[in-house]
């Protein structure tokens, strides 16, 4: 019998967004009051596992772990200089600076100037760190999900995983059983597939000449004002039912598609270029 729920992940689990309608994690808390949510926008698995490593030895058959496994390249760099609220923003910017040599710093955020100062002094060290741990990063999620799987065997706890991108999973659904479950639809897909077909076509027409990345970023930009954790209330309900279905041994529903007509508000969001430097679902 599950008594405790612990949630790890990124903006798909971030509890700060929960104001306008019931959320999947809010509903979990209604059923299991002893629910802790460590979801943090912009966080990668490296951030989430810092907490999980501490929690692991204490887990037992009364625990349910819900993991949103976000992109492994979101490295949690050691940045003691960053203002705490901006730490993930800084980490994303470091990743970008390392990968994209043509990247130009943006001046939209106040923290950027501080970041640029830091980067001019430390980017070589960050690049060396990534060169040293490149393979650990590329294959990071495969090892993380392996550890979660063995944890479900040894601690006897239940573990439910969503990947933001299924390509980052090695096992996919092949080891699913009563104690371990990887959902076979990625959250990125679910987020994108919510849009009604007409809206997708309109997006496409309006944005002819754009790259797929531009279009996706535009769609994601809608979320800043309109979708809580990048999903509609209907799919929050589905997420809750997916977890409950796993715990109770019932059917696990699929995400709903074609249910959301994006209503982008230019006045509210300003120039889209602002988002071009951001990870799509941060």
């Amino acid at each position, binding site marked *: 019998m599950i008594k405790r729920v612990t949630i790890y992940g990124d903006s798909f689990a971030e509890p700060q967004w929960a104001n306008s309608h019931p959320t999947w994690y809010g509903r979990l808390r209604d059923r299991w009051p002893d629910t802790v949510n460590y979801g943090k926008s912009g966080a990668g698995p*490296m951030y989430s*596992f*810092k907490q999980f*490593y501490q929690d692991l030895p204490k887990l037992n058959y009364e625990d349910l772990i819900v993991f949103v496994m976000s992109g492994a390249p979101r*490295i*949690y*760099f*050691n940045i003691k200089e960053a203002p705490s609220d901006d730490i993930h923003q800084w980490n994303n910017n470091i990743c970008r600076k390392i990968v994209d040599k043509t990247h130009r710093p943006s001046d939209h955020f106040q923290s950027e100037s501080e970041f640029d100062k830091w980067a001019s002094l*430390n980017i*070589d*060290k*960050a690049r*060396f*760190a990534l*060169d*040293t*741990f490149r*393979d*650990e990063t*590329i*294959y990071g999620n*495969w*090892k*993380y*999900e*392996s*550890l979660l*799987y*063995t944890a479900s*065997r*040894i601690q006897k706890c239940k573990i439910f995983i969503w990947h933001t991108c299924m390509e980052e999973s*090695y*096992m996919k659904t*092949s*080891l699913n059983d009563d104690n371990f479950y990887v959902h076979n639809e990625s959250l990125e897909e679910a987020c994108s597939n919510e849009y009604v077909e007409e809206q997708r076509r309109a997006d496409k027409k309006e944005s002819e000449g754009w790259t797929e990345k531009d279009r996706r970023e535009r769609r994601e930009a809608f979320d800043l004002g309109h979708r809580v954790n990048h999903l509609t209330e209907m799919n929050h309900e589905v997420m809750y039912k997916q977890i409950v279905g796993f715990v109770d041994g019932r059917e696990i529903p699929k995400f709903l598609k074609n249910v959301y007509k994006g209503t982008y508000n230019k006045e509210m969001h300003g120039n889209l270029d602002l988002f071009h430097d951001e990870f799509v679902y941060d």
Partner: protein
Amino acid sequence: MIDIYGDSFADPAVTIAGKPIGYGGFRPWHERLGKVRNFAKSSTGPHYSLRELYKCYKKYTKDDHIIFIISGHNRIHFHVPEEFKQKDSICPEDAMWDPVIQRITLYKEHRKKPQEKQKWYDKHNQHMDYACRTFQEEIDTLTEKCESFLYMISRLQQCKVTVFLLSTARSYMKDRLNDDLFYLHNYGLMTASNEEFINFKQNRYPKWELRANHLSKENHDIMTDIIQTRTFKPFKKNFVDSTPFEQVEERFIYD
């Protein structure tokens, strides 16, 4: 195919007191298993061995057998920039994070310190320090993740996996998930190596290693038997005269 990953406990290139492996008139365990590919390299840790494994693991099938020795988790295979890549004297694992003083130090060998290695260290020790601080938790849990990943490979590729550790103290799985495909030997190789000595506590850090892969013939026999039967068998203890192993400094004998 049998593939071997690990450190000096499996390294085929090890020389003993300047003589090639086999000194002592016996074949080491890794040469008794038939056709093998041996990726083991002295001084390396799981960070290095995993890099080798990543290149192969998806090709394994039910006909394959992986033998993996998980050595010290803090042996990091640091990046060596191009300008130093041709220098054979650089072993990236010789720069190690010292948890007491909280910084990177360069391993001091008995032999004269190669100049190139010192140059590499002087130029990049702050970079290494930063890398370790950023990845600290990932390094600290490398053993747990490595054994979990190996377990996963045995499930998904359906190949046999046999795991040894230098020390089982950091093992998360121990032998709790052993089955037909996965076998973790729940006794540390470092302990087995040390316990060969008579009065081993007094002779914990011998100056000279005279044994092939840090084990005597008797324990090469046992190691072979463990791998072939994949069942627990204790290593032989307390039978090696320590006199020729002159005691010196603080470095572990298998480094």
